[in-house]
């Protein structure tokens, strides 16, 4: 069964249609990359799936269950999102402990006292960070907290919106390794939005190239590694990121 399936989805912000007629299937346990320039609508797709961009038509379903437009707790427990900017996505006055316990409290689950340290350990956070505030952590540590928070409800699907583009290369490597390990350990399905193609090559199984709100090509990641994309725009994008400077 497909973990995520989108059928003829149009997404709009007010009068502007941002994504048009998008259909995608992501298999369970797969990591699917969504790439494209800014403004191509790739983040918007994730926002529609989580319910942050409610103005869509078409069909979005997870594990065969169609998604409604209202806030849905069951849905939230199944599918969580990690945002680009770890500086902006954590509450500045909430300790790590509070941020990680909140999803459990909302869903009326207990056991925060054991689950929080467990999850911190799984995400490579030292236990002494538990009662610290975001400003006392580095960027990479904050992103680990954001990932840990997303995993507190044991979701099956993680939506990653540029999870490493605000981080240094050396820290990026740590977070990418973490994501790869968590996916293996917890059998997660990822959709990864990024404009960094080498990251897709490292983490993903398949990718879709988006341009102006449409998917122009879906290909296995081998096509990216061996420069065997077929659509001219996809080739152009690969070319550009392989060789950014030479004219």
């Amino acid at each position, binding site marked *: 069964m497909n973990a995520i399936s989108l059928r003829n989805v149009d997404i709009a912000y007010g009068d502007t249609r941002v994504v048009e007629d998008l259909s995608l299937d992501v298999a369970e346990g797969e990591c699917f990359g969504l790439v494209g320039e800014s403004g191509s609508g790739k983040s918007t797709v994730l926002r529609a799936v989580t319910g942050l961009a409610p103005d869509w038509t078409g069909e979005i379903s997870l594990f065969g269950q169609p998604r409604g437009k209202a806030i849905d707790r069951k849905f939230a427990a199944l599918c969580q999102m990690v945002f680009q900017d770890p500086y902006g996505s954590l509450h500045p006055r909430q300790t790590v402990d509070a941020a990680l316990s909140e999803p459990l409290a909302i869903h009326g689950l207990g056991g925060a006292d054991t689950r929080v340290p467990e999850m911190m350990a799984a995400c490579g956070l030292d236990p002494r960070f538990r009662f610290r505030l975001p400003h006392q952590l580095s960027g990479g540590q904050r992103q680990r907290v954001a990932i840990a928070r997303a995993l507190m409800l044991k979701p099956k699907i993680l939506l990653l919106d540029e999870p490493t583009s605000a981080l240094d290369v050396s820290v990026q490597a740590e977070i990418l390794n973490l994501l*790869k390990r968590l996916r293996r350990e917890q059998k997660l399905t990822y959709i990864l939005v990024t404009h960094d193609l080498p990251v897709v090559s490292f983490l993903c199984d398949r990718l879709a190239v988006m341009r102006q709100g449409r998917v122009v090509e879906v290909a296995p990641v081998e096509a990216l590694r061996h420069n065997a994309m077929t659509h001219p725009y996809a080739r152009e994008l690969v070319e550009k990121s392989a060789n950014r400077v030479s004219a």
Partner: protein
Amino acid sequence: MTAPLLEVANLRVRFPTPTGTVEVVRGVSFTLGRERLGIVGESGSGKSLTGRSILRLIRKPGEVTADRLRFEGIDLLSASEWQMRGIRGARISMVMQDPKFSLNPVMTVGEQIGEALAVHEHLPRRQIRSRVLEMLEAVQIRDPQRVFGLYPHELSGGMGQRVMIAMMLIPEPSILIADEPTSALDVSVQGEVLRLMNDLITRKGMGLIFISHDLHLVSQFCDRILVMYRGRIVEECAAGELDRATHPYTRGLIASVPRMDETRAELPVLDRSQWEQA
């Protein structure tokens, strides 16, 4: 080669904290000619502070000392604030990371670019306007007449950064310091912005200090690279020879970047304990 544009010897930047003075830049020395010099390092390695201290933009209580900090024969450390104003913008200028935060939101693009000219050169207004339009065209903005009257929030990221570059290059400085000029931009726009900067720099024979954490980018774009770690330069090499770098930090940094044809199951992570004592 002729005398270098900029000489820096034993540059140190310190900040007092409640628990004692912290030295963030610890004895950096380099010279810059008419070339493209890249400074690479992680956040907190002191690369941006090095750039800023050249323009004396470090505020109190931060403290900058150096054995030598000379630009075209002027000692930047002992220059008066009045002299510095003549240098900043006119002879050494700086492009910042994010155009969103470094453009004045209540001034039109044209006024902002023109301001640099109006301050440093006394020209009639009409001439300033035509120079600004020329410059906007030089940074490949399609409709300069229209963009001239726009406010920064009406620009896209790539356009904003081009406006920044236009603003910094219009007084024709001898040195351009670019602090992560493309980090906030898309890959596809990055290329364009860099090419543009490169063209303008080579045409006018400027010196460039390019500060970035992106090793690949720097190795493609610059002539010479300084690698900074913890406030020190740990390695200096020609851009083409980066793959022959010897310092474990540089090697670790190179290895941790995923490649387009990535097949490694796990990316190597920097083991800081190896060279921490050094």
